[in-house]
């Protein structure tokens, strides 16, 4: 499968506000690709650019081999689902969905057939004649999806589709979205600020911050090998210690030292360790054992999260709550093991 979208050196500015800076992304066909980042990072702007509602000051946008920057939204073969669903209140569900097909001058019986098909796909067949104001948030979202899918666009663009739903529904919907994607095999670009969402359903993620792409890759790769501190912090909790690395030994300049690291020398670097990669145990043949003191603990359901003081650094340690493990209390002294292989220097 080749790349269906090539974004090359795209820059977008509003007056002095430089919203997207030299963005380059290639998106593979049939991928579920996510733009992830905090508010204002430019991810929605890029999505709207692809849809045709924003203009770039420089760069190229190629969809399926064609440069489309100069094309109007109605001339591009992409479908955009809006954050507020944007269902037309004066039309029934059926009419909302058939809109795009009518614009394409599809014959009537085919329209009816395809509308019914897509309604079944999203599970809304019984609500065909309802009006948007008679639907719940989740139902409206499905209609919005159906409306876009039915015209079979090359690329499906979803602008934070789950952010207006409550937590439980959100989880349910994202699984359904994934299923839909698998069934339809349509290239999908998904915009969100929620890293858990991104992690759970994406094939690939592009992380944005302040208009600049930080890293692109599969969720697990980004998680395990963040390129910078921002990515590391954004995708889950992480311990980061600043310091120097010399001959495989990291030192924060005081008491904290990790040895046997496979990393280059650096005078200014950070040590990254995930909370789940620090263990309450003493390894016999390792010199990465530390003495720590419990500062505080949080019960998070499936894990217990401790803040532990280790050689002058407060680090977060997650311990799986299986029911029979030891639970430590504040000010308790503990033995802690940090595995250099699961640590990273950036």
């Amino acid at each position, binding site marked *: 499968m080749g790349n269906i979208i090539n974004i090359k050196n795209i820059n977008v500015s509003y007056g002095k506000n430089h919203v997207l800076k030299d963005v380059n992304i290639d998106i593979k066909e049939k991928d579920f690709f996510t733009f992830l980042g905090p508010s204002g990072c430019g991810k929605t702007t890029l999505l709207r650019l692809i*849809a045709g509602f924003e203009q770039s000051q420089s760069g190229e946008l190629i969809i399926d081999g064609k440069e489309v920057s100069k094309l109007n*939204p109605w001339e591009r073969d992409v*479908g*955009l689902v809006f954050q*507020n669903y*944007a269902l037309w209140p004066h039309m029934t569900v059926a009419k909302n969905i058939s809109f*795009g097909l009518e614009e*394409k001058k599809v014959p009537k019986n085919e329209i009816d057939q395809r509308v019914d098909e897509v309604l079944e796909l999203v599970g809304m067949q019984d609500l065909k004649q309802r009006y948007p104001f008679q639907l719940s948030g989740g139902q409206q979202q499905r209609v919005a999806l159906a*409306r876009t899918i039915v015209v079979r666009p090359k690329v499906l663009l979803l602008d934070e589709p789950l952010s207006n739903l409550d937590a439980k529904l959100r989880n349910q919907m994202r699984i359904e979205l994934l299923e839909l994607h698998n069934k339809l095999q349509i290239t999908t670009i998904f915009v969100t600020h929620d890293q858990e969402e991104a992690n759970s359903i994406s094939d690939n993620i592009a992380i944005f911050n302040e208009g600049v792409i930080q890293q692109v890759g599969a969720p697990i790769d980004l998680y395990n090998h963040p390129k910078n501190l921002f990515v590391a912090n954004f995708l889950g909790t992480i311990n980061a210690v600043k310091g120097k690395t010399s001959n495989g030994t990291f030192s924060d300049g005081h008491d904290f030292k990790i040895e046997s690291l496979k990393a280059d020398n650096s005078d200014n670097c950070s040590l990254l360790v995930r909370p789940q990669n620090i263990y309450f145990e003493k390894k016999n043949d390792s010199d990465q054992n530390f003495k720590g003191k419990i500062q505080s603990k949080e019960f998070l359901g499936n894990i217990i999260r401790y803040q532990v003081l280790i050689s002058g650094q407060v680090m977060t340690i997650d311990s799986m709550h299986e029911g029979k493990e030891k639970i430590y209390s504040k000010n308790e002294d503990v033995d802690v093991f940090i595995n250099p292989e699961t640590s990273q220097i950036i």
Partner: protein
Amino acid sequence: MFKNLFLNSTSLIIGIFLLLFLVIPIAQVFYVSFLDVNGSFTLVNFSDFFKNQLFIESFYNSFYVAAMSVVLASVFALPLAYFTSRFNFKGSVIIQSLGFIPLIMPPFVGAVAMKLFFGTNGSVNLLLDQYFGFKIPFMEGLNGVIFVESVHYFPFILINLITSLNNIDRSMEESAQSLGSKGFGLFKRIVLPLSMPGYIAGASLVFLKVFDDLGTPLLLDINNMLAPQAYLRISSIGINDPMGYVIAVILVVTSILAVWVAKMALGGKDYSMLQKGGGGMIKRDMKPRQKITAYSVVGLILFLVLSPHIALTLLSFGTIWSFSVVPDAYTIDHYKNIIFENSIFIKNTMLYCTLAAFIDIVLAFFISYIVLRTKVKGRQLLDYIAMSALAIPGLVLGIGYLRTFYSFNNPLDGKPLASWWFMIVLILAVRRLPYALRAANAALMQISKFLEESAESLGAKKTTIFRKILVPLMTGGLLAGFITSFSTATVELSATIMLVSTEVDAPLAYGIYSYMQTAAGRGPGAALGMIGVLIVAVGTYFSQTIIDKKYKKTGEVNNG
């Protein structure tokens, strides 16, 4: 106990006032229309009405004129609404302020001047004929009424359209564009239906006002419409002529229908609820050619909207204006006439309108308090009846007053009560009450209940609370209500024309009508009109300023 007695008796007094001066006169009108010559119930008057060619024609004409006025007004409004909503157009500022201009001059005031401007041998046509060899029958027959009314009401429709369009969420358009729609198709399928409810609400109100208007057809000498027919029948044949009442009933029924349509349009499909955000349509920049077109259209329409004012000004300063583009010469004699020699009109108006506005704010204060703050029985009815004065055409109320109060004599001077000047004050008060009530409601709703409750818990009686807390806090709103009441009452004609019996008692609007009946009276009549317009303009300006200032200041303090 005392609280209840005070509130309940106030409520009762207000109820009686509304009963006497609003409900009963209207009921009388309905009642009489169903009486035959012997005083028994009959439908013969209505069947006479519908058998008579002239009345059927008048009915049709009134309907036609009202509908066409809406159409023409929409035609003026549409391009401007389009420019403002669709483009980044600097002229939008001018357009937005247009909405204010027609409010300050009722159509009848400028009607005569418009005839001089746009008539067959008026300024515009003389020029058109001279340079282009053709004339446009702007003011011929019904066209004249339609033209004057649409020039007056189009900014109302404009503001309505702009608001409707601005309430459309941008994503409504973008999602359609994303699905392949563009240009006129997009407009037709998405923008138009979404802006319809707001437009229809506005359009039906305009329809209603034109349908009921007495002054404009009267001053343009058009008799074959319902309102002038009613007036003529009553004033020439007498208050016993059933036809006048039949027409009045028809006017009221149509009014209620129109208001109902407006409510339905807005109530049923509140599209703005579904759309989160508004933001209006996607705006584009204008190309140079489009800019030129836009500015010329704006200029032309601006000229039309201001033409009554321009024409009236010329007429008020002109000596002789006959078969020429502009008056022969200019003078200030007309103003001198009405300010010094015949100042009675202005004086009467000031007196009547002040009294009426005062009555209004007192009533409005109590009604809004009773409705919003108490549980007095029947308070919703009170509010409803007071507001219903909006749907009653002034002419009908005037006829009702004549009928109801003619048989009683004023104890002070023995003349029929209906011809007492104070009745004019009352009819003005009743007609303007809805505006004052709205202002009072707005003012009261801004004030937190807790302010009163804390005063009560400190032992203050209701009257003290009114005096020391509510009235001072509501001053801005009440003042605004007073000014609105006052200034709009200044140019009221339909109701007062029925009640004015002697010129000594005549207010400004009647004075205009009376002056326009004499050859040498056009100038003074126009001058009088200008003064009326001035009063309304100044009043509206101050009212707005007070509201803006007061609510910016107290809005933050009284949130709750």
